[in-house]
């Protein structure tokens, strides 16, 4: 990632996205989706740019640069490779959500108690890990696609609809609610909202547990998927077709 993209992702996109949905919420004047509710949801949802879209695109970039085949035949430790791919996006995701929540508090006057700093920090770190794990999982799927842009675009924005970023998940039809429950962003947003509102530990712990579980499942599935595709690619020599 280039530095201009990183700075744009951290400082500009969250602000403009939050302003956009804040005005939509103002016009809608919907009691279940106040401006503060929408602003916080979008502040967390902007994590998808660095955690899903960028991570997903690394597969494309490696294919375009012709480095994918070299990676697949290298004897390098696979765990180091997978986590190495995710490390920088995790840091950028942390910065993005932190800056976005600062905008929410300073510009949109979202209530924030000083005692909420630690729970909020834990929620943000867990969310960033879970989302990057999810991005790596999608990057694994993208290995066998000609391009990851469509996949990346779908999951970049799907969270805005299904994860409770703009309105409670319970407003959605039941099948969509279930899909939403499988997205790490849903639990990440819930954990951040709970952290911001100064919820007790008894309420936060289950949410952190769910975000952590999402992270473990996503990283596990991503590694499994990459492993399977890698074996398949080596056995059939078919990676160059995609």
């Amino acid at each position, binding site marked *: 990632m280039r530095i201009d993209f990183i700075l744009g992702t951290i400082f500009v996109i969250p602000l403009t996205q939050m302003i956009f949905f804040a005005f939509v919420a103002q016009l*809608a004047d919907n009691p279940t989706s106040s401006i503060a509710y929408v602003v916080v949801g979008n502040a967390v949802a902007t994590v998808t740019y660095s955690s899903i879209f960028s991570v997903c695109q690394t597969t494309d970039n490696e294919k375009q640069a012709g480095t994918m085949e070299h990676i697949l035949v290298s004897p390098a430790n696979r765990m180091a490779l997978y986590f190495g791919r995710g490390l920088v996006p995790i840091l950028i995701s942390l910065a993005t959500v932190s800056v976005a929540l600062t905008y929410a508090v300073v510009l949109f006057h979202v209530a924030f108690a000083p005692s909420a700093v630690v729970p909020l920090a834990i929620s943000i770190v867990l969310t960033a890990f879970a989302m990057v794990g999810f991005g790596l999982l999608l990057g694994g799927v993208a290995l066998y696609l000609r391009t990851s842009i469509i996949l990346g675009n*779908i999951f*970049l924005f799907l969270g805005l609809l299904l994860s409770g970023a703009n309105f409670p998940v319970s407003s959605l039809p039941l099948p969509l609610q279930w899909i939403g429950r499988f997205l790490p962003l849903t639990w990440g947003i819930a954990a951040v909202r709970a952290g911001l509102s100064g919820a007790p530990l008894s309420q936060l712990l289950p949410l952190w547990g769910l975000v952590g579980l999402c992270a473990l499942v996503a990283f596990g599935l991503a590694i499994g998927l990459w492993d399977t595709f890698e074996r398949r690619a080596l056995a059939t020599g078919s990676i160059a077709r995609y």
Partner: protein
Amino acid sequence: MRPTLASRNRSRSLFASLRLAILSFVADPQWLVPSMIAPVIFGLVSFELFKGSGPWFVLYAILGAGMMSMWGQTLYGSGWATGQDRELGTLEPTLSAPTPYLYVVLGRVIWNTVSGLLGGAIVFVVVALSYGRPVPLQDPLSFVLLFAFVMVSLASVGIVFSAAYVYTRYAGFVQNIGEFAFYVGTGCMFPVVLLPFWSNPISLVFPPTWALDALRYAAIPGYQGLPWGFGWDLVGAVATTCVYLAIAGTVFVRVERHVLEVGNLSDY
């Protein structure tokens, strides 16, 4: 009067560029999808937020989503026309060809306008289907005409961007970062009068602000938009679109002459 050699070359370049744009699209039409995913989702999110606000609010969601889709196609298509040439290494040969570069870009812009309208129509249908009831349109014909005009106003902005992108390798950055700012600035999902007053002059610099406001005046009864109303909105939209097209033509000629004189195109 017989066309001159120069005008024949220009129209030949224009059609060749248009043909190539169509063939590229037909070979891989999936590229329409990325510019539609975000608008469809934003449309559905807004539709959900507007639920219970009255039947006319669905039009805000539909118009906004349609505009976003068209803008996506315009910005990423027309605006990217130069960036694509730069990446493929065809910018220098195309600029040094005897036919002005504007005609090559224009061919792409024409196709992007058509495919943008197609994308806008698909987004319209998806959000309208989610609504589950007939969309309350008072005058469908004028709605369609104004919708198409919004696309033309967007294309005029795209051409100016395209000309400016000759001088920068940060086109992708500007596109990604500027997308939401443009949606906010032009009031694509809400009346621009909701924005702070100081920002209104900036919004009015963009033709789609006027065109969208006119479209809402025509489609939504009791709409409270820019104070001068539908007629002047339309005049403003036509005028700013013409100004943009004139600027684009002038900028293209100057940019082309400048980079040919200085020979520094590869610096960017």
